């Protein structure tokens, strides 16, 4: 949005005369100088060709063209030439046209508040002063802090008469009261004179309140009305007439005593109720805990029975150890031992069996405890003791089972690992054997082929004799030929079929090292 630099000059002028105007009015200019309405709007020779309005702070460029200072500065930001003739303009070369400025300032304008009813017209330069000091159609705020109503200056004095927030003196007590609250204040003003409704004497309100406590004609109840005395009458009569006759007066001591007792009891009752409410959730919590424990205990006993002979063993153990708790626990320690052993032995399948047996023993121990407990229940030794014993035993057994299952899991893992490494080794061996087999097959194949060839060329007769004679040396040459790598098939067609025929026998019988057979 384009700024109006012209506003600065004019607003400065308007602010020059010091007056009692408030801060809000000073922060913003009283009017927009470019929105002024002129009496003569058609003198185009006095108008800026950029904004098409009468010049505000006119400046001329060296080319001779004149614009408002604000307009030309904005136009030069967009393009650097004169808007009219496009001659380049340096902003510092602009100069103020004082005469034109005066002429334009002397143009007659309407008050900006013409629409509100101000018919004032004056020279443009005067309009700021008019708005500041004279114009009654300018907006202002009510002076009362709580009100701050926006209104026109001309309505201010009228408003001040009726402003509900205006402070008014209370004529009775001389305090300042808001006008709107004055009628309410009269009902409570301590200086207001009030007539007592009982004895019809008149005094100020502040004294009246004290008077009511002792007004002799006020109707009051008997002081023992709390205990049931129905008497009502003027205060004046209470002591003089009623008290000597009052039937409750004679038992007053008893009544008061019982009342204090009642109060004490009520208080105690309340305290007890608070304690009760406090304890109830705790009891509920404990009950829940007991329920959970018994459930978990049942679960353990159910898990143990599927082990088959567990129960029987338990009873047996119990009977042998005389029903003692320590005796019943013994098998478990045995289990511990065997488990230890199984750990030591490592990857033996047989040890898994040992572990299982250990667990079984463990469960036997648990069962024996259960039965032991059953016995105890019958004998009614302290039930609480048994219960605690049971719980602690339960915990121990559970932890034992946990360690055992962990051991089992690790054992299985180890075993799996061993099987895996073993099978891998076997696989490698199988592969190497397969490679050996393959090598042998190839050799066999080659030899058979050779044999056929030699038979086809030289005929069967005599060859066995030659082969037999060559037997000893043939081994060496044959070995060399093979280790040369791919020798036999290449050398076969050309050279010495006789000596190569002699090769097969010694090679097969020798069973030379594996690396030699690798072709």
């Amino acid at each position, binding site marked *: *949005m384009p700024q109006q630099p012209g506003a600065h000059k004019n607003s400065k002028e308007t602010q020059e005369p010091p007056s009692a105007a408030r801060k809000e009015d000073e922060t913003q200019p009283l009017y*927009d100088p470019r*929105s002024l309405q002129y009496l003569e709007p058609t003198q185009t020779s006095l108008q800026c060709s950029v904004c098409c309005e009468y010049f505000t702070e006119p400046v001329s460029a060296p080319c001779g063209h004149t614009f408002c200072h604000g307009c030309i500065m904005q136009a030069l930001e967009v393009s650097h030439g004169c808007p009219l003739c496009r001659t380049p303009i340096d902003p510092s070369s602009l100069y103020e046209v004082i005469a034109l400025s005066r002429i334009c300032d002397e143009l007659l304008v309407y008050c900006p508040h013409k629409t509100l009813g101000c018919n004032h017209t004056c020279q443009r330069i005067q309009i700021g002063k008019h708005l500041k000091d004279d114009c009654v159609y300018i907006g202002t705020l009510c002076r009362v802090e709580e009100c701050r109503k926006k209104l026109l200056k001309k309505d201010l004095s009228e408003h001040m008469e009726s402003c509900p927030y205006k402070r008014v003196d209370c004529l009775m007590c001389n305090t300042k009261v808001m006008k709107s609250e004055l009628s309410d204040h009269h009902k409570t003003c301590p200086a207001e004179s009030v007539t007592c409704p009982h004895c019809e004497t008149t005094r100020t309100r502040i004294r009246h309140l004290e008077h009511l406590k002792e007004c002799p004609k006020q109707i009051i109840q008997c002081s023992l009305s709390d205990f049931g005395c129905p008497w009502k009458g003027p205060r004046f009569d209470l002591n003089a007439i009623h008290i000597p006759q009052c039937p409750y007066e004679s038992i007053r001591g008893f009544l008061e005593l019982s009342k204090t007792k009642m109060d004490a009891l009520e208080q105690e009752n309340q305290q007890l109720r608070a304690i009760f409410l406090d304890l109830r959730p705790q009891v509920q919590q404990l009950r829940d805990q007991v329920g959970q424990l018994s459930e978990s205990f049942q679960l353990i006993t159910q898990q143990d029975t599927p082990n088959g002979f567990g129960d029987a063993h338990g009873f047996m153990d119990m009977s042998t150890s005389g029903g003692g708790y320590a005796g019943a626990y013994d098998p478990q320690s045995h289990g511990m031992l065997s488990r230890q052993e199984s750990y030591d032995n490592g990857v033996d399948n047989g040890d898994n069996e040992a572990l299982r047996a250990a667990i079984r023993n463990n469960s036997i121990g648990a069962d024996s405890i259960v039965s032991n407990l059953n016995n105890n229940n019958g004998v009614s030794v302290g039930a609480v003791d048994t219960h605690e014993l049971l719980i602690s035993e339960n915990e121990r057994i559970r932890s034992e089972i946990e360690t055992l299952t962990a051991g089992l899991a690790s054992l299985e893992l180890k075993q799996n690992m061993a099987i895996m490494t073993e099978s891998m080794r076997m696989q490698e061996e199988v592969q190497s054997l397969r490679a050996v087999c393959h090598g042998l097959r190839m050799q066999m194949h080659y030899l058979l082929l050779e044999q056929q060839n030699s038979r086809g060329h030289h005929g069967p007769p005599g060859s066995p004799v030659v082969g037999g004679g060559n037997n000893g040396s043939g081994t060496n040459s044959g070995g060399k030929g093979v280790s040369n790598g791919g020798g036999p098939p290449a050398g076969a067609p050309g050279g010495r079929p006789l000596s190569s025929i002699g090769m097969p026998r010694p090679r097969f019988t020798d069973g030379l090292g594996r690396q030699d057979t690798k072709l």
Partner: protein
Amino acid sequence: MAKPMFARRLSKELKDLAMNPPAGVDIIDANDFKVWKLGLAGAPGTLYEGEKFQLEFNFGPNYPLESPQVLFVGDNVPIHPHIYSNGHICLDVLYNHWSPVQTVASICLSLQSMLSSCTSKERPPDNANYIKTARANPKHTAWAFHDDTV
């Protein structure tokens, strides 16, 4: 309370345009200070005599420091070597030769004179190519002003 510059100038221009419009120009639609539609009639004694055209002006908030978008709209776009069939006008004062002293009325006069000085009714030679690639706003086109005769 201060009206922005473009609003004040446009309200003044609108008043002037309504009071004494240039020859052949009439206001069709100018309800705000953003888009105006003006009618332009071909001047008598020219190739466009009797024809009616519609001009659309789009004013930005920096008007008159920046030029408005001006283009022909409607069914009848004048056939002229500097006017493309999508309504874009190749006229230097609408683009880089814009000056803030120009007004809607002065643009209308320039267009009227451009039409009047035309000697043969034909589209620009690159019309077919241009209307395929041109953006909606003619101010985004890089114009080359080479022909001063029409």
